[in-house]
């Protein structure tokens, strides 16, 4: 394909949209989750049946639409009719769907499940899903540049590079109120502005943080797998704004499909003049490479990530200097999360004001969550900020899978905390979750019902953090282990009230004395369990007199 100029891009898009669609469109979800659920043989069976019957059908493999519990997912649309979503599709079911629906035009009610379209709304309303980040996930073939272009792909890059100044992009981001989705929630416009202002003219780097190490979280993986070009667009625009010529995708090695899809997407973009020298004929040179994560949770921390790229031990270093001042190879660098970057193109295209109108207070736009635990429909969801936790669990995820009452919801993974049932009407915002002793985090959400035990859940998270401590600083390295030993004593019903006091003392030392957020937040799950479910701890204690 030729290298695109801005005009070519538009012409190509128009051509794609005008192309006559096949009579039937069959989409099969083929992310890591679909693959694990057996979507490959389903895909093969569909191809076979379509070929056998000689049907005029386009078979598309897509990313994850979010309904991971219902994989393998197959979506069928015949003759332009609204698509039907089928879930938990077996090979036999797939054959039946082709036979009855694709060929016969009759929906197979037995395998029908609610579609994402039915569950989300056109306009952002609390309690319903609204898709910005996941807009293409499960909808397009992530390995097809054409499908991305047909859905406004690279229009934002064109818009920014040809019709805006970097300052205008920063200003739109400021209006949008977008904050980093990697956990800390730092205003994105500010980070871009600071990195742009830092040492102008020097070599700079933009880094996409795809290390995603929280247990139970896979938002970033789904975006990388399901809509890789959207993240690349975020990188191009970010690189252009800060003055970087090089972008680096840091993706954890445990995500082979995400790596493969980003690799393919980079090659496609390069071949079409969307990456490399003279992007879209604008004179802007920018290219991306991929680095594999070193397999440690702490390598998601931006300074440890940079050390890891440099080939050093992946341990955090103190800030300042911030990466904007002195980052990769001592040059000004900017680390952005996958989800943050996936928002950029849409903000550039639709304007900061559009984004800023979604959400509440200082928490704007949407947030993707990976909801797991005791819910009926677990999976990936994207909701407008300000949606309450109860709406997520009851309305979007269908309540508890056991039918038992909800006990608590854990947000923020190992750095976050438990929120008890009586506080579930709290709106999901950075500030409100923080007030409750939890955090927004990167998007892990675990739902617990009455049969779950908070001592054990907090112990699980503590164990994870202790295991993942890099060992650089004393409070985290030793404090975590000492806290874990104390909890084990309580679990073994050998603890006393003095041990609870000891846990609190260790927690304070870790919060104040640890170098990075890993150690500072390690005590959070335990402290929140103590705060809201103290009786579960005290009932395990030995009365002090019996010692």
């Amino acid at each position: 394909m030729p290298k695109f100029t801005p005009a070519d891009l538009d012409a190509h898009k128009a051509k794609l949209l005008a192309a006559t669609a096949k009579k039937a469109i069959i989409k099969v979800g083929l992310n890591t989750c679909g693959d694990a659920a057996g979507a490959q043989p389903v895909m093969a069976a569909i191809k076979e049946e379509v070929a056998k019957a000689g049907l005029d059908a386009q078979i598309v493999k897509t990313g994850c639409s979010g309904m991971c519990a219902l994989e393998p997912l197959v979506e069928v649309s015949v003759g332009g009719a609204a698509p039907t979503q089928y879930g938990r599709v077996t090979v036999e079911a797939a054959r039946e769907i082709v036979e009855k629906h694709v060929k016969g035009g009759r929906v197979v009610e037995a395998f029908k499940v609610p579609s994402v379209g039915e569950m989300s709304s056109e306009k952002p309303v609390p309690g319903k899903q609204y898709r910005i980040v996941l807009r293409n996930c499960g909808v397009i073939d992530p390995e097809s540049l054409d499908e991305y272009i047909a859905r406004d792909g690279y229009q934002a890059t064109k818009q920014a590079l040809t019709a805006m100044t970097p300052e205008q992009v920063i200003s739109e981001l400021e209006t949008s109120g977008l904050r980093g989705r990697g956990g800390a929630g730092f205003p994105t416009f500010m980070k871009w502005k600071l990195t742009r202002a830092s040492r102008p003219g020097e070599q700079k780097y933009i880094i996409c943080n795809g290390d995603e190490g929280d247990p139970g979280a896979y938002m970033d993986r789904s975006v990388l797998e399901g809509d890789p070009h959207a993240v690349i667009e975020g990188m191009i625009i970010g690189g252009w704004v800060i003055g970087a010529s090089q972008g680096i995708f840091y993706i954890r090695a445990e995500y082979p499909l995400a790596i493969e899809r980003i690799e393919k997407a980079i090659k496609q973009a390069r071949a079409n003049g969307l990456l490399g020298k003279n992007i879209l004929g604008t004179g802007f040179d920018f290219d991306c490479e991929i680095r594999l994560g070193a397999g440690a949770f702490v390598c998601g921390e931006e300074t440890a990530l940079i050390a890891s790229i440099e080939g050093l031990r992946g341990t955090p270093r103190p800030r300042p200097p911030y990466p904007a001042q002195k980052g990769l190879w001592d040059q000004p660098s900017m680390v952005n999360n996958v989800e943050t970057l996936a928002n950029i193109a849409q903000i550039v295209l639709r304007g900061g004001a559009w984004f800023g109108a979604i959400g509440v207070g200082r928490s704007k736009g949407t947030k993707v969550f990976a909801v797991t635990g005791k819910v009926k429909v677990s999976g990936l969801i994207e909701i407008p900020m300000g949606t309450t936790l109860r709406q997520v669990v009851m309305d979007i995820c269908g309540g508890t899978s056991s039918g038992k009452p909800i006990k608590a919801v854990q947000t923020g993974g190992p750095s976050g905390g438990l929120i008890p049932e009586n506080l579930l009407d709290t709106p999901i915002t950075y500030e409100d979750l923080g007030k409750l002793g939890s955090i927004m985090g990167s998007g892990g959400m675990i739902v617990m019902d009455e049969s779950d035990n908070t001592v054990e859940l907090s112990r699980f998270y503590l164990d994870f953090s202790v295991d993942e401590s890099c060992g650089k600083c004393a409070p985290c390295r030793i404090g975590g282990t000492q806290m874990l030993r104390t909890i084990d004593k309580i679990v073994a019903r050998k603890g006393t009230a003095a041990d609870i006091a000891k846990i609190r003392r260790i927690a304070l030392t870790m919060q104040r004395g640890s170098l990075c957020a890993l150690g500072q937040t390690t005590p959070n799950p335990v402290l929140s369990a103590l705060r809201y479910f103290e009786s579960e701890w005290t009932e395990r204690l030995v009365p002090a007199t019996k010692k």
Partner: protein
Amino acid sequence: MTVKAIINGIPIEVAEGTSILEAAKKVSIKIPALCKHPDLDHTAACGICIVRIKATGRTLRACCTPLENGMDIVTHDPEIVNVRRGIVEMIMSKHPNECVTCSRNQNCELQTMCADFNIERSDLDNIVPDLPLDETTRAVTLDPRKCISCGRCIQVCQKDQNVWALTFMERGIETRIAPAGDISLAESPCVKCGQCSAHCPTGAIVEYDEGPDVWQKLMDPELHCVVQIAPAVRVAIGEAFGFKPGTNLTGKIYAALRRMGFKAVFDTNFGADLTILEEGTEFVERFAHGKGELPLITSCCPAWVDFMEKYSAPCRRPTTPRRSRPTPRRSTWSRSCRARPKSMRSSATTT
């Protein structure tokens, strides 16, 4: 450029880039610091130096945070002191209680820190790891159990000496100091410069102690023991025995060594003279008679020679002289005193 700030209510103006720790020193405020060595860049490892920013209530490390304009800092409050104390207690829970037999006893920064915080006992579990000693170099002794992971030795070894022999292995609570690649120190690129032991705050890396071995040899009637002292020792030894710094004690040292049982006491000056004669001869041979390569580079420091040989490819053998160490030659002395060479044992003292 200077910055103006307030520390414990005291206004202060310092050069831009000065750490909070250094700035506080200028107004006679001592912020306790354990991992930070005055001569080295910070490692930010212990967290004992935390101070509070009054405006936000947040704590940050004084050793690695530059003072900024307008900062208002509190260095001591009940919570900060408790946290510092908590950290020292944690470090102690993982450190063997072997002070009386440790060669760093009375000269250990961790011991001092414990005393400063009045730490006598702790309710934390004892979690001292079981790790073997590394005495393979017979130059420095590595006792990883005593390591507090301050990172100083790694910094001097990697960044200052550029040797890269030492590193941290594993992570989290398993983190331990070790030669890179987990080989023995003798197999590692270690050049035995001793910078790690000179900067270690605890007894985790100390100079290898040959004392017990020397005493054994001295007490063996079959052996003929000789000793030599390095020039600097004559003066440097005085302070340890309560003499005024700078007192020359050559005579007293000779007498003491003879009473210990050494048959002869040499002065390293003598060996140095011999070395210079030999090196001079070699140089003349190479320079004037073209026998061997040039340049000829020499040093009495065995670590320097080791470093050149390991790390400086063009400086392999031919550039360092055949003989560059001022130690007396066994054969020469045994001829002049008629002792059997095999029964000769030679000790040397250096500073």
